[in-house]
């Protein structure tokens, strides 16, 4: 029973931004600065900033700066508030009571907030061991990077003594740092892929200087031990099975968008990203509802998320001040062929700005791939890449072909070769 409950307070604002991470804060700052009216940003955590709140490594900020996550988070929040946005933390958005009306709660009690435009910036999370269907016991000592970082950096809690990291995306190296900080010994990194997905320098530093071997082509097939983890069973590329003794395992990467609000609002999701489907103006299929950041494409850098927030703000302003109207729900969709996983944006609507770039993801490493864009069998664009496409990292695709799309045609397909 999730309807209104007696005593709920009602409020009206111009823009409601859900999520005060890099994307939501950047959108709010820009909107407030450009005179969008009352801009309210809500975040369910006690502190603003999103993921960077619990990233202590110096990986944030504009080019040339090396801020820690918390430093970055504080500046982003200050910028939004300084520009005139209202920021409330400890405020959870629960669900929809109308197309632009959301129910919230917090220590001040339930509220019902109606806005002229809604921006979803709810971020992404790493998938749990269960979601990855890793069999075995259900011991203590099984974490994701997000939980590990919070335990170490926000609560100063010990996490274990001997740890294995699953995954080799850049975020896995952040897990490595957090484990070291907590005094746990990282024994190995394990990936099903043939090599690390992190920049070479980072991967080499961990392996050579840190002495943490990277086990490639290896699957975690079982967790052992109760009540605490005692080891994990691995199947190596050659089919052999081995047990690695450890008391902690961190499942990293494998991000999935935090899409509950979008789904509960009946907003069309993209089949590839599982986040809201959007056009180049960050418009979802639901009039007046926008989406930005990791909820669209888990997960880019904070800089990309913030840049999108600023771009989305422009689009929200156009919506608030310009002529009424919203592109058709049955816009041309952008789909991907294996080994590509998804594209953002993934809807093409008339009147949307020509996207500078599309962000793509691949399932496997692709050495200097040629990307091909087609519609109804017609080739719209070919693009040769000079870098290797890495799973879990962005693969850009130029948007120059958009004018060639037939608005009444079928889906646009992006493939390789």
């Amino acid at each position, binding site marked *: 029973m999730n309807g209104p409950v007696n005593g709920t307070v009602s409020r009206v604002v111009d823009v409601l931004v859900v999520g005060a991470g890099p994307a939501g804060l950047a959108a709010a700052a820009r909107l407030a600065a450009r005179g969008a009216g009352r801009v309210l940003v809500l975040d*369910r955590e006690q502190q603003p900033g999103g993921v960077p709140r619990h990233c202590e490594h110096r990986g944030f900020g504009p080019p040339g700066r090396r801020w820690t996550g918390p430093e970055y988070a504080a500046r982003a929040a200050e910028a939004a508030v300084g520009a005139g946005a209202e920021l409330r933390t400890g405020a*959870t958005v*629960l669900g929809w009571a109308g197309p632009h009306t959301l129910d919230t709660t917090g220590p001040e*009690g339930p509220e019902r907030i109606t806005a002229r435009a809604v921006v979803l910036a709810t971020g992404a999370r790493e998938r749990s061991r269960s979601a990855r269907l890793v069999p*075995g016991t259900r011991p203590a000592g099984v974490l994701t990077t997000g939980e590990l970082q919070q335990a170490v950096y926000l609560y100063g*809690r010990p996490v274990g003594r001997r740890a294995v990291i699953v995954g080799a995306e850049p975020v896995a190296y952040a897990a490595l740092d957090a484990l070291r900080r907590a005094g746990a010994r990282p024994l190995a990194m394990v990936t099903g892929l043939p090599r690390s997905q992190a920049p070479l320098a980072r991967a080499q530093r961990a392996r050579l200087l840190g002495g943490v071997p990277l086990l490639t082509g290896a699957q975690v097939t*079982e967790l052992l031990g109760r*009540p605490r983890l005692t080891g994990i069973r691995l199947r190596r590329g050659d089919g052999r099975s081995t047990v690695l003794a450890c008391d902690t395992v961190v499942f990293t990467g494998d991000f999935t968008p935090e899409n509950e609000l979008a789904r509960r609002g009946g907003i069309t999701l993209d089949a590839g990203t599982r986040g809201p489907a959007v056009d180049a103006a960050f418009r979802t299929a639901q009039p007046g509802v926008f989406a930005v950041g990791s909820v669209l494409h888990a997960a880019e850098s904070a800089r990309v998320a913030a840049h999108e927030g600023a771009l989305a703000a422009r689009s929200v302003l156009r919506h608030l001040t310009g002529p009424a109207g919203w592109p058709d729900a049955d816009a041309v969709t952008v789909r991907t062929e294996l080994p590509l996983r998804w594209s953002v944006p993934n809807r093409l609507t008339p009147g949307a700005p020509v996207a500078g770039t599309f962000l793509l993801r691949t399932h496997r490493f692709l050495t200097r791939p040629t990307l091909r864009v087609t519609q109804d069998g017609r080739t719209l664009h070919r693009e040769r890449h000079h870098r290797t496409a890495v799973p879990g990292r962005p693969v850009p695709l130029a948007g120059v072909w958009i004018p060639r799309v037939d608005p009444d045609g079928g889906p646009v397909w992006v493939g390789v070769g």
Partner: protein
Amino acid sequence: MTVTTTGPLPNAPYDVAVIGAGVVGTAVARELARHRALRIALVEAAHDVGEGTSKANTAILHTGFDAVPGSLESRLMADGSHRLARYAAETGIPVERVGALLVAWNEEQRAALPELAAKAGRNGRHDTRLLTPGELYTREPHLAPGALGALEVPGESIVCPWSTTLAYATQAVLAGTDLHLGCRVTGIRERAGHHELRCARGVLRARYLVNAAGLAADTVDGMLGHHDFTVTPRRGQLIVFDTLAGDLVRHILLPVPTALGKGVLVAPTVYGNVLLGPTAEDLDDKRATESTADGLAALRAKGRGILPALLDEEVTAVYAGLRAATGHEDYRIRAHPAQRSVTVGGIRSTGLTASMGIAAHVTGLLADTGLVLGEPRDLPPLRMPPLGRRAVRPCRQAALVAADPEYGTVVCHCELVSRAEIRDALAAPLPPHSVAGLRRRTRAGAGRCQGAYCGAAVTDLFERSDAGERV
């Protein structure tokens, strides 16, 4: 009101000691606690109640429609399910009468439905009904195509198994039962009209004994010199899907039973998830509660055949429980009058349903054996936290949050668990002994993120409280 987890055990003898604080042992203790004159001990090896099979089942409050008519199980299920439905309504244990549909996927199964309806009638269930495919698909639009019909069993319900065990135990404790946790019984001997229980924490004396040790009921019986049955664990693995899958199914979807057991079902849970399972694997190891790649693959294949869209949804949790099979169809409940003891064995796959019926039956057997019960009284009322999807979560209750803003401070975002609910559980008469125990009491960490967002905060609250700090 006493719950002990460490230290020596009281010297004074008890009237009754119940061994095992699963759903059955706690129900028995609660029933006995209605008799004010009795001094009762509930003795449990684990550090919390319900840590055995009672925490890992399919959470269905059965009607007993397909039990063997005339069996003890059939009788105690019928009695127990009435009692538990009433008790759940009184105490706020989440329960929903969603009804079950036995779906026929081929001619043979469809032909078996009338006989199942007749059997339900012999078990006192006269309200079953045959559904045409049209009616079936109206009820369950997401069902895989090809079903030929179904038998509807309206009374089948879903229930919160953790709240049930916890409510029984809490009420027993509030009524004066001593609960001794971390207290495995390793030997029993007769001395001067008392049973002397050798426990991990010392010796405990009692005039009467109830063996409700679940998977270990045969071992405990052996301590009393009985070798009536052997428990063989039969594992059931289950997959829990995210609440966002909750709209896909409205009823408990049962397969038409075969000689091999009840088979794999798809059912909503009272929290709004969807359950897929269980498997049925006979094993030797009574601790083998791990899931396996084969088991999960088999469940997913079955699930795809029942509710294809379910497989696209996010999995929240995977778990496995062990049924206490004895190679015998019926319950093994037996009084040993000369020994002043009752054995409650073989409560294989229906113990949650029958728990209150079993408790009443066992209390009767103890009285027959010579235990003087005295007049029963009503137990002090108990109210369990509103964990179910049909209840209004505290963070949504304006008056409650106004009175105590901590009810509006949401810690676990997926399940909307407030800091106040966690605080309350940590300060309850029967507090959790682990983060998992806290999860079963509050649902903190039980959602799709499995702690990725709140795990550190919840663990911090638990650890601080465990260290004696008030949180």
